[in-house]
């Protein structure tokens, strides 16, 4: 019940958000110097007639409003339009890349969340201890590392020097591998980009979890639980950790967007054909429908992630959706 109400309220709020995103993105690109034809001519050159003809072919001779209206009306038919840079429907192009990004982001966030929260609990177990100092400083240092730089270093060390892992791509190209073998191959390819993308979040979760644990320690119910004679271990894991986890779960939703942003750089460093890189290409190619498509699909991913997080949160925290207590 609670879940259903949550979902419907979220979905209703999505429409204006998406409308703002679409119009904002559209006019941002509209305000840019150079259009899709300029971007196209970079690699080919061509005379004025060619440029004019391309603009006509691609509908760029129409007014911005007309093109926006066209996009919106096709959107109403669940059609994301035509990518001029790829000469293919935007949906096709975007959906091709989406799984890779989801895989990369999902793995990174899951590992970062798992490892980060567990290490955070460990660090908070004895604040100020050597383990805590090491974890805290280490995480702070990792938190300060630029992801792209980390990616470069990882490639040099693990792919080039040690030759342990592939330097990029999402799987061995045209390998013909199937089933488990293919999954293993993809996993090997994911190790480095996931590390470069997720390390920062791991550090973040570690720090948040540690702070949350220490904060929760101060709560009355912890003191009360100990006063009732519950073993410390049990209090830490069952009560403190679970409560301290709640703000981290909230963060998860917000992070979907920031990770998508981070994947722009990571995907380009590791040559992962994903949404982030596609967005970069779309901007470079001034491919407005494509960028809108990417951002729209990205927004849907972010919104879906938020929804999932909300549901997860509602499951973890029974207070959600119950409304505030009545005060007289």
């Amino acid at each position, binding site marked *: 019940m609670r879940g259903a109400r949550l979902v419907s309220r979220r979905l209703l709020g999505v429409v204006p958000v998406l409308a703002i995103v679409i119009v904002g993105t559209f006019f941002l690109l509209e305000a840019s110097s150079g259009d899709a034809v300029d971007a196209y001519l970079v690699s080919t050159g061509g005379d004025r007639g060619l440029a004019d003809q391309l603009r006509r072919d691609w509908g760029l001779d129409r007014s911005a409003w007309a093109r926006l209206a066209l996009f919106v009306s096709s959107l109403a038919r669940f059609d994301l339009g035509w990518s001029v840079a790829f000469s293919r429907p935007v949906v096709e192009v975007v959906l091709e890349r989406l799984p890779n990004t989801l895989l990369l982001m999902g793995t990174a966030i899951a590992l970062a969340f798992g490892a980060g929260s567990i290490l955070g609990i460990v660090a908070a177990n004895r604040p100020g201890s050597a383990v805590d100092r090491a974890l805290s400083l280490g995480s702070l240092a990792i938190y300060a590392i630029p992801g792209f730089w980390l990616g470069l270093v990882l490639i040099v060390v693990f792919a080039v020097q040690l030759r342990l892992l592939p330097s990029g791509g999402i799987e061995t190209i045209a390998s013909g591998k199937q089933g488990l073998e293919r999954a293993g191959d993809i996993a090997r390819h994911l190790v480095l980009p996931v590390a470069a993308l997720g390390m920062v979040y791991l550090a973040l979760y570690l720090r948040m979890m540690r702070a949350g644990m220490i904060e929760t320690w101060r709560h009355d119910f912890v003191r009360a639980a100990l006063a009732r*004679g519950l073993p410390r271990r049990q209090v830490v894991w069952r009560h403190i950790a679970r409560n301290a986890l*709640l703000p981290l779960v909230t963060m998860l939703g917000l992070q979907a967007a920031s990770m998508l942003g981070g994947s722009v750089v990571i995907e380009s460093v590791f040559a992962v054909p994903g949404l982030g890189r596609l967005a970069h290409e779309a901007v470079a190619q001034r491919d407005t429908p494509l960028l809108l498509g990417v951002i729209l699909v990205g927004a849907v991913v972010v919104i879906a992630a938020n929804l999932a997080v909300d549901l997860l949160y509602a499951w973890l925290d029974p207070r959600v959706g119950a409304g505030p207590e009545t005060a007289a």
Partner: protein
Amino acid sequence: MTAEVLVRLAGAGVRYSAGLPAAIAGVSLSLARGERLAVIGESGSGKTTLALAMAGLLPAGSTVEGRIEWPAFGGAPKPGRDVGYVFQDPSGSLDPVMRVGDQLAEVAAAHGDADPHVNAVELIAQVELPDPVRTARAYPHELSGGQRQRIALALALAGRPSMLIADEATSALDPVVQKKLAELVVRLCRTNGLTLVFVTHDIALAAGLGTRIAVVYSARLAETGPAERVLSDPAHPYTKALLESHLGRDVPRGARVHAIEGQPPDPALALPGCRFALRCRHAVATCNRSEPGWAGARDDGAACILPAGMLR
């Protein structure tokens, strides 16, 4: 009465950390099995510290001066098993994201209960909540303040302790609920033979609960004794003032109410004399010079130089 002594304090004091002033100092009193002690004091007086010290629940890093002994437990009490503790804030002392039944069962299991979930329901019934099975499935936020405090009470009892300490357990509740809960606590203590320490700022509430009363003022024990004696024949002017300040349903409208002028001194201030002297109608010069000694028996007396019976 030569009942078994559960806890004995001798010149006991507590400092939360080395640099801080004593939160309570120089307390000597003892509590025997089956007794009900009401500890009365204003905010910041040190009454909660006294309760925590008696429960053996002082936070790490605090130091105890003097002696606190638990002869009946053979050493410091085991939390939950020897002493059950109910905290002031009914919403804060429960884990907000766990069903209350699970919390009860968890504590019962920790104390070796073989069938904790059945026991949880029994405990809920014991604190007189309606529909115990359904209540067991509720989350804390789904209960009212009074119901939550009953659950907290049940949690304190889940380890079958012999002593119960309720620290302002009813103050956050409104008077109707407060009264019912206080009555329940007394009933439970009577039926289970529990020893009770009930901390409150309301002397009238204490009057209805305790067999004995201890009055705490500004980190010092002002007076202690059997409830009847303290209420009818207070030996400390502060106790007397508290009694006079009580507003019952019979105060005449329009007249000025009884008031104690002035403020309690900052506990951090080192005062040479009696800490109540500045507000005391009976104070004499010596009161401002030296701290009064204890007059009367250890468990029946006051920290005042006034001769016994003077305030009657």
